[in-house]
């Protein structure tokens, strides 16, 4: 049947989609913030795998030109886009981890439901709309360096 033929030709994509959904499951369902960030990293890496699989040319080689031999090269364009995406991914992870450290310093916990419960107990709104402009109070002179 035609569907069976396409599935056997595209089985790479199916396993990678399974990995993507696993990463998404970790992000949505786990309460621990570090585990959420790990799930996000797994999700991103699986998306990269999907993208690079699109660029593969059967019988080709890495897109580094050689003066002899093969004339078929894999598509270099997905590689470039994924290089950018990898670096952006690590930037996101670094910022996420910095936020987790500050959340732990402020609340003493990195479990999502506990932090939300603490915020509700302290009467804080779920968003920061009503915060004053100087929450620390650590600026005695009003911020003027002169």
């Amino acid at each position, binding site marked *: 049947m035609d569907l069976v033929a396409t599935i056997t030709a595209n089985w790479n994509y199916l396993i990678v989609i399974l990995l993507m959904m696993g990463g998404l499951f970790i992000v949505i369902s786990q309460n621990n913030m570090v585990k959420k960030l790990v799930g996000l990293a797994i999700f991103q890496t699986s998306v990269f795998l999907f993208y690079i699989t699109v660029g593969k040319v059967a019988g080709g080689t*890495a897109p*580094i030109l050689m003066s002899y031999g093969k004339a078929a090269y894999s598509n270099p364009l997905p590689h470039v886009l994924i*290089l950018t995406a*990898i*670096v952006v991914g690590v930037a996101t992870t*670094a910022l996420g*981890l*910095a936020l987790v*450290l*500050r959340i*732990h*310093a*402020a*609340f*003493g*916990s990195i479990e999502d439901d506990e932090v939300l419960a*603490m915020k509700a107990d*302290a009467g*804080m709104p779920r968003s920061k709309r009503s915060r004053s402009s100087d*929450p*620390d*109070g650590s600026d005695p002179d009003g911020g003027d360096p002169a």
Partner: protein
Amino acid sequence: MRDNPVLRTAAKILFAPIIVFGLYVQFHGDYSPGGGFQAGVIIAAAFILHGLIFGLEAGRRLVPEWLNLAMLAAGVLIYGGVGVAGMALDGLYLDYNVLLPDPSAGQHVGIILVEFGVGLTVTSVMLALFHAFAGFSEDRFADKPEDTAGGGSQ
């Protein structure tokens, strides 16, 4: 880890070859897999190794904070500067064809300069990230208006 002779000797011996390998990856990126990002991470790994084994203060003496921030900005400015140089020489922004009389040599120079800028930025960012995370102390940020909620003593 400073007292362990194996780690200390290994870090001292490995430091220079890692940087040389990083520079090789940076400038050989036109002919083999490599380029700015990979080289930046490798060179930062050498400094991170030094900081791990000999302590954060020794690491900070090697690369002071002002130098780290200056390299961070310099990398982005080099990249942007190549673009502006293209405009100053009657081309478009980031046009490498006009940088030298021969267009393909101009492309070559443009690519090398741009990758160098990228490598510089990535090195300084990774090093700054390491020092920010490793030198973090919860006591600095612990007092918030809602003082009832913990203070990092978990």
